[in-house]
């Protein structure tokens, strides 16, 4: 028997998914033009690109949620027309979307089996005992530790991710598509997810991993497809797969760096917070915020930062402690009261808390600040012409990519939607602006623009408080950073001490101190 030449030992793998020349337009907007994607069996394949580059559209096409105008898709070498999500799962694909789909009141096991064929007893009833036996190895493999009869709503976001992965495995998916899996996970939970992803890949399940976080992409993926303006502009692997090459491909030009030059020294204290508490999440918070300053609030997910922001904003009321704005006591009972006192908020969940997706850009920009739109100072009527003109000006100032001020805001990309939420506060000029995760799910280009905008607002004398879970973001953006852990402000960092590693170290330090040796 002749030895097989080594070059022949590895047959050219038939891709699990090969999509080519995919084009899709929505109305006038071309979401994809001749895009291609090829995922090999068992590989972790990255999909990156700026917001609006076409990632979601490509995934929606694979999932059978929308149909391409042109192009071909082959699954394991066979041409496939994916007409519905049902057919997509029939072809061995499973999709885990950013917004997790689970039924809060059903149990872990019921959620894992949701929509899947179930074993029946002779009487035709669902045989949960047998199902539980069958599913046990998969539960073990993905590391679900919660009891199977616990309600899904009692679990953390990370554990619900595990449920979705388990569902995909029960279904024997050959490709699992994960859309921004780490957006709402803490660092520890991310590490756990990564090891599961690696395990999936080792057992022959391909993963299409969509993320803005390039560190994760570089860490996990063997090959990466980069989309830009609806085209697949690069497929990087091996030595080509570097952060620099990725960023170049995503941006398509030189990357602008934010100059950290400060326009003005921070002014007098405008907001002072003393001993603010609302258990269980906020144990003790005291700090000062100055005019013209960008103050960062760092820490892990669940450290109490968003809950602290809710207290400042009057969405919740503190158990103890107090606040002053410009020396006067400030105890907002509602967000409306906080706005009257001079606060503005860019909330964490822009789609559900920040915007009316069905309404126009102009409507969303004017929300909560309607006085400038009045046709005359005496009558209560607003002028549609004035509204359109002001909206057009804001769209121009913030370079929001939109066809007209009347376009529904739900049709914009994430970065542009975020600019609309920020734009709302541009005209009313609050004294204090709180931004909760301002660049989550936003692409690199728009992120730079949003950062510049925040610095500009501070330059005009606004006091800005930025909450961010990305340690990279705060050192670039902020004059000073407070790190929260377990409901307390554990460290203040400024000047040369303000680094990414210092923030991370402080976030974890407090947690470790609590653990008995």
């Amino acid at each position, binding site marked *: 028997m002749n030895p097989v030449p080594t070059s022949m030992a590895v047959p050219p793998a038939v891709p699990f998914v090969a999509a080519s020349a995919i084009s899709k337009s929505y109305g006038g907007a071309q979401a994809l033009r001749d895009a291609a994607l090829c995922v090999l069996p068992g590989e972790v394949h990255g999909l990156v690109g700026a917001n609006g580059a076409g990632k979601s559209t490509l995934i929606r096409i694979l999932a059978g949620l*929308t*149909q391409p105008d042109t192009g071909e898709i082959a699954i394991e070498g066979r041409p496939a027309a994916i007409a519905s999500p049902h057919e997509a799962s029939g072809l061995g694909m499973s999709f885990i979307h950013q917004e997790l789909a689970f039924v809060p009141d059903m149990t872990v096991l019921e959620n894992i089996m949701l929509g899947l064929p179930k074993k029946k007893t002779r009487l035709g009833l669902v045989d949960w005992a047998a199902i539980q036996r069958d599913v046990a190895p998969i539960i073990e493999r993905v590391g679900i530790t919660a009891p199977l009869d616990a309600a899904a709503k009692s679990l953390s976001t990370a554990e619900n991710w595990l449920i979705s992965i388990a569902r995909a495995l029960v279904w024997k998916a050959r490709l699992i598509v994960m859309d921004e899996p780490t957006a709402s996970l803490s660092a520890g939970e991310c590490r756990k997810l990564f090891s599961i992803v690696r395990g999936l890949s080792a057992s022959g399940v391909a993963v299409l991993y969509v993320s803005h976080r390039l560190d994760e992409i570089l860490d996990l993926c063997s090959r990466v497809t980069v989309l830009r303006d609806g085209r697949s502009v690069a497929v990087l692997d091996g030595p080509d797969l570097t952060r620099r090459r990725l960023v170049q491909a995503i941006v398509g030009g030189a990357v602008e760096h934010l100059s950290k030059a400060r326009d003005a020294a921070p002014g007098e204290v405008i907001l002072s917070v003393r001993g603010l508490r609302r258990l269980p999440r906020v144990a003790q918070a005291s700090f000062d915020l100055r005019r013209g300053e960008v103050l960062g609030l760092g820490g892990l997910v669940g450290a109490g930062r968003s809950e602290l922001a809710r207290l400042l904003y009057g969405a919740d009321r503190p158990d103890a402690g107090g606040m002053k704005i410009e020396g006067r006591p400030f105890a907002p009972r509602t967000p*409306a009261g906080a706005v009257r006192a001079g606060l503005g908020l860019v909330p964490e969940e822009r789609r559900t*808390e920040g915007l*009316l997706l069905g309404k126009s850009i102009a409507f969303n920009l004017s929300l909560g600040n309607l006085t400038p739109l009045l046709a005359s100072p005496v009558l209560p009527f607003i002028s549609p012409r004035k509204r359109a003109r002001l909206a057009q000006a804001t769209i121009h100032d913030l370079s929001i990519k939109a066809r007209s001020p009347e376009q529904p805001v739900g049709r914009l990309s994430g970065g542009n939607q975020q600019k609309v939420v920020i734009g709302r506060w541009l005209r009313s000029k609050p004294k204090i602006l709180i931004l909760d995760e301002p660049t989550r799910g936003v692409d690199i280009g728009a992120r730079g623009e949003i950062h510049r905008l925040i610095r500009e607002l501070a330059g005009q004398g606004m006091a800005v408080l930025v909450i961010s879970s990305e340690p990279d973001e705060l050192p670039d953006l902020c004059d000073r950073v407070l790190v929260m852990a377990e409901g307390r402000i554990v460290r203040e960092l400024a000047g040369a001490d303000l680094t990414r590693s210092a923030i991370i170290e402080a976030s974890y330090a407090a947690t470790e101190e609590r653990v008995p040796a």
Partner: protein
Amino acid sequence: MSDAGYTRRLSPSTRAALGVFARYGTIIGLLVMILVFSFLSPHAFPTYNNFINVLSQASLAMIIAGGLTMAVIVGELDLSVGYAASLHGVLVTGLIVANHLPIPVAVLIELALGALIGVVNGVIVTKLKVNSVIATLGVGTVLVGLSFAYSAGVPIVSGVPESFLQLALGRWLFGIPNPIIFMALVFGGLWLLVERTAIGQEIQAVGGNPAAARLAGINVDRIKILGFVLSGMCAALTGTLLAARLGSGTTNAADSYLLTAFAAVFLGSATLRDGEFHILGTLIGTLIIVLGFNGLNIFGAPTFSQFVFQGAILIVAVGLASLGRSLAES
């Protein structure tokens, strides 16, 4: 992830055609109905007198539907409007006949009382966090009880002054029946309020996304209460005009307006906009329903057919509205 149902698998041209149907279907339906009735009954239906007559009849339902639109725009339902209107009819007659109050004073008291009922509904819904279906059904049932307590279920018929009847039967301006004038004033006012004032923007925002409206600094509870107040005041006006038209205050007289108003409001949400409630839509919605009734009447269609018509049109209306929404989202 919003699932747009079967609409996402349609070709662009089918989708465009469906879009036109979802947005303009009600208006097309209205025109077709007018044409068909005119053709079948050229002497009775398409006359100025019939139209004025129909519009005058329709005005009471329109006013109550206009008010209900305000409640549904802020994202709540108001099931008390029919019962409230009945109570107002009984009370206003009582105030005039038994208490000898001047008519304008009696009417103003009713409007204030309507606003008060709205405040009660609104406070129960926003502060006690009771689902608006339950809250307004409960309040409405209490109102039925109050109405019986006041009149013992006996219609107040004797001693109703002619001048009160003139409120509904008179033609004070250009020979147009008064109810039409009242209806036009109510609709003009509500349209201006919703579409052209700052409060109207807040009303739309609260209905569209209460969480976002709250965080943008809008007092969501106050806006919702305002929606109920306007609904309550419109119910009071309808109840008063109905009593004037009937010449009596009768318990249950206005109860059936509830269903008509709901059908009109949902038909309206399927008109011109993608499943969004709005004042102009409600106007067209009510026209469809009352013209339909009128046509059926002219042909002497049996009573049961009117119920079938009203029930069927409600379902068609809601179907059209959700079709419009899913087309807009996909």
